[in-house]
């Protein structure tokens, strides 16, 4: 089993790893051969060096970004799921709130960043709010869709067992909506760190966004790349946490998927 899983993982990831390695080597060679100036395009080795040399600075700038991202993400998910439950539970809310929700999804949330600064200043709040907004929409919409898509027959079965509305949500509707909710959370997770960075660009004293701005203003392009790598790493970690919690809360789902893949 384990060996089989390992070979499948290898088959899946080796091509991507090889491709990445080829791109990085080509980049290094290109920069050296053409003698590209650092402010224009630094070589990968130089970026790694910058990453290592400014690691203390990077870590201390990463802390506020992590706090903003984590707070915003968690609050966004909680409000998104709660909104989904309320919209599907109360017909009036569906008519009043849901069309607006869909319409608001088309508003570019990032464009709200300057407004948030006007309203809430330069502290932690506007950055967290920006992340909340970005995470909220996909989670709310996927929660509504997931809760609506529940098999009516399962709900009816629970009703014959005398289940209350709350029990129907807890035992049937939410579990059956979970795959969709996690989908929405993954979409939100990919935008979370970027939103915190954009929030920081509007005005902050610390954060990876600040680090990036400073590096770019002083033409230290290798540091800009180092900062981008750090941002990407944070995004991947957040995405990984969501994926892992999905595996832990929905073991049946992955077991079933794995079996399906094996029978194909």
């Amino acid at each position, binding site marked *: 089993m384990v060996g089989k899983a390992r070979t499948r993982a290898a088959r899946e990831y080796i091509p991507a790893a090889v491709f990445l390695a080829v791109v990085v080597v080509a980049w290094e060679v290109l920069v050296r051969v053409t003698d590209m100036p650092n402010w224009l395009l630094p070589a990968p080795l130089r970026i790694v060096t910058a990453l290592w040399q400014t690691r203390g600075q990077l870590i201390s700038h990463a802390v506020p970004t992590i706090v903003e991202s984590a707070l915003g993400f968690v609050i966004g998910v909680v409000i998104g799921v709660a909104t989904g439950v309320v919209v599907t539970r109360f017909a009036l809310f569906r008519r009043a709130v849901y069309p607006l929700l869909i319409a608001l999804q088309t508003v570019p949330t990032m464009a709200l960043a300057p407004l948030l600064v006007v309203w809430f200043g330069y502290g932690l709040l506007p950055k967290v709010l920006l992340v909340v907004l970005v995470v909220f929409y996909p989670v709310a919409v996927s929660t509504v869709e997931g809760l609506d898509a529940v098999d009516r027959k399962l709900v009816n079965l629970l009703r014959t067992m*005398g289940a209350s509305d709350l029990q129907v949500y807890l035992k049937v509707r939410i*579990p*059956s909506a979970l795959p969709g909710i996690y989908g929405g959370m993954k979409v939100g997770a990919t935008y979370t760190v970027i939103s915190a960075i954009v929030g920081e660009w509007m005005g902050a004293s610390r954060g990876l966004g600040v680090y990036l701005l400073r590096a770019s203003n002083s033409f230290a392009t290798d540091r800009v790349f180092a900062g981008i790598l750090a941002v990407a790493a944070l995004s991947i970690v957040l995405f990984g946490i969501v994926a892992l919690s999905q595996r832990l809360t929905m073991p049946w789902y992955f077991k*079933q998927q794995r079996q399906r893949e094996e029978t194909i």
Partner: protein
Amino acid sequence: MAHLVAHLEVNDVSKAYDQGRGQSVQALSNVSLQLGRGEFVSLVGPSGCGKTTLFDIIAGLTMPDRGQVLIDGIDRTGETGYVSYMPQEDLLLPWRTTLQNVMLAPELRGGDLTESRQEVMKLIDLFGLSGFEDSYPFELSGGMRQRVALLRTVMCKNDIMLLDEPFGALDAITRRDMQVWLRSVWEQLRITVLFVTHDVEEAVYLSDRVYVMSGRPGRIVHECVIPLESSRPRTITSSPEFIALRSQVMDALDSGT
């Protein structure tokens, strides 16, 4: 029986389904039936004659166009929670294991679950599900899923049980075992059972009474009392008395379609 109130009474129920564009299908037409407390009654009828519709109405999931459902003489039309219902599809929750699915009703009732869990562990063996307590529904065969669904219904613990073709997906041998088991459990518990099947032999073997329905729109066309002794060995199915009853039901079924 006239002086007693029926445990479950269906009184002149009719139901039509709207098919859109002004079309409708009459699924049930003036169906009446009574079940005494502790009676085992089967309902046989051709496919599409409205048996499942009738069960949905009795369970309170569908409102009839006309007529009432009375439980202990009280009008419960459209009210849920009075009967244990095993639907035709097994409807197991895919995110729950066998054990978790079976424990659904006790869980919804709340309170201490240890007693229910002990009972389930005893029954799981009888249902041929031991070794699969922690399997998810997609890992079970159709027949096993059906047995899980039946066990889940048993754990609902209402004194009226509606079983919609509970043995439809079972092989002949398992099916016989489950019939013997159901009859013996029923002899102990004496709950009121309404049982849908396409298998006339199954209906006669299990029941005190058999209702025969006509093709759509479903009506009750025949009622057949099964005067066999209460405790029924499997060999009873080859007795002349049994064979006569079976052909009586079969004839009613033929003439109703």
